[in-house]
């Protein structure tokens, strides 16, 4: 019997906690869905959407305080750090040096030593700079950070990131904010198959079916932001994503039937009337 499912008196019972929890960096999170907090039209919608998604871990970015208060105030005025596990990211950084600086500022905020490392290499596609990412991951891991590294859907880079001590590797489904969904299920499966640390797909998911398909590849979790924030109804989409991530995980655990390009009848061919 697969993980997360057992039979009781002939009935299959789904162990909800095992299909829904994500163990990463010594933490047990109550959801395999991690969400970002950017781009929402207002803070009330953001908080409501995060709650609807069931996410336990949320990402936040480090930015200058606006001394003239013309911009939004800090997110901690809206998001309770006791309700959600804050995962600081290095979003917007273009070099290892810059990412390391932002990481240390984030840790000094005093919440935890987890970090979502992201080093962008190209402004147009927002694809990661894997060389700088590996370099930063190495330095930050040695410095005691629990690094969850955003990367391409490239197996060798994923292996290197695991080698330098990342606690999770986060390959993209497709470019950040694109909503193109999972463009390379084969590579994602291959990364999951070869790594020992959790594989959490990060970026590119557009709607519930994308999330479900991604989880069906066997990955440990998904991180998304724009798919919720840019939906017409972020709270509704967050609810859909919660079910999609869980459905995808359960389908993976259940083991799908083989697909084939010929029809096979599912009713007996014998016993038909003359």
């Amino acid at each position, binding site marked *: 019997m697969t993980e997360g499912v057992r039979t009781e008196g002939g009935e299959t019972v789904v162990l909800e906690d095992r299909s829904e929890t994500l163990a990463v960096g010594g933490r047990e999170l109550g959801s395999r869905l991690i969400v970002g907090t950017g*781009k929402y039209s207002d803070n009330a919608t953001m908080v409501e959407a995060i709650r609807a998604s069931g996410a336990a871990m949320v990402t936040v970015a*480090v*930015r*200058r*305080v606006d001394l003239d208060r013309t911009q939004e105030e*800090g997110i901690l005025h809206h998001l309770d750090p006791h309700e959600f596990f804050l995962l600081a990211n290095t979003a917007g950084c273009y070099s290892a040096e810059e990412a390391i600086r932002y990481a240390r500022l984030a840790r000094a905020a005093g919440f935890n030593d987890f970090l979502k490392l992201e080093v962008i290499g190209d402004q147009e596609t*927002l694809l990661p700079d894997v060389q700088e990412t590996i370099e930063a991951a190495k330095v930050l891991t040695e410095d005691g950070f629990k690094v969850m590294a955003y990367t391409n859907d490239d197996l060798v880079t994923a292996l290197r990131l695991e080698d330098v001590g990342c606690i999770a590797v986060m390959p993209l489904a497709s470019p*950040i904010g694109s909503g193109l969904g999972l463009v390379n299920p084969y590579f994602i499966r291959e990364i999951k198959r070869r790594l020992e640390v959790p594989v959490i797909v990060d970026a590119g998911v557009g709607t519930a079916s994308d999330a479900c398909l991604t989880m069906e590849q066997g990955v440990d979790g998904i991180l998304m932001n724009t798919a919720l924030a840019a939906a017409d109804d972020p709270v509704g989409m967050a609810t859909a994503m919660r079910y999609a991530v869980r459905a995808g995980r359960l389908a993976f655990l259940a083991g799908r039937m083989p697909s084939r390009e010929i029809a096979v009848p599912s009713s007996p061919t014998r016993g038909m009337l003359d």
Partner: protein
Amino acid sequence: MSGAGRSKRGDTVGVRINGEDRKVPRGLDVRSLLEWLELTPELVVVERNLEILERDQYGSVTVEDGDALEVVHFVGGGLASSTFPEEMES
């Protein structure tokens, strides 16, 4: 530190905060500076001349003339496109 930024009356010092030149009262420690800026010390992180200050240092580090300070906090963000990159000075 050079005294070039000092006002004639000597009651302020010139510092650079988040990329902007500002005059602030002389003799403030970092905690008092944050309060003077109407910020909550527990919700921000301060980098002074490229060195991060721990919160328990705020009361003992005095803001000097010519200091470059970065005051940051957590904002909403997911990935690169969902935040607004803003260059910090190095």
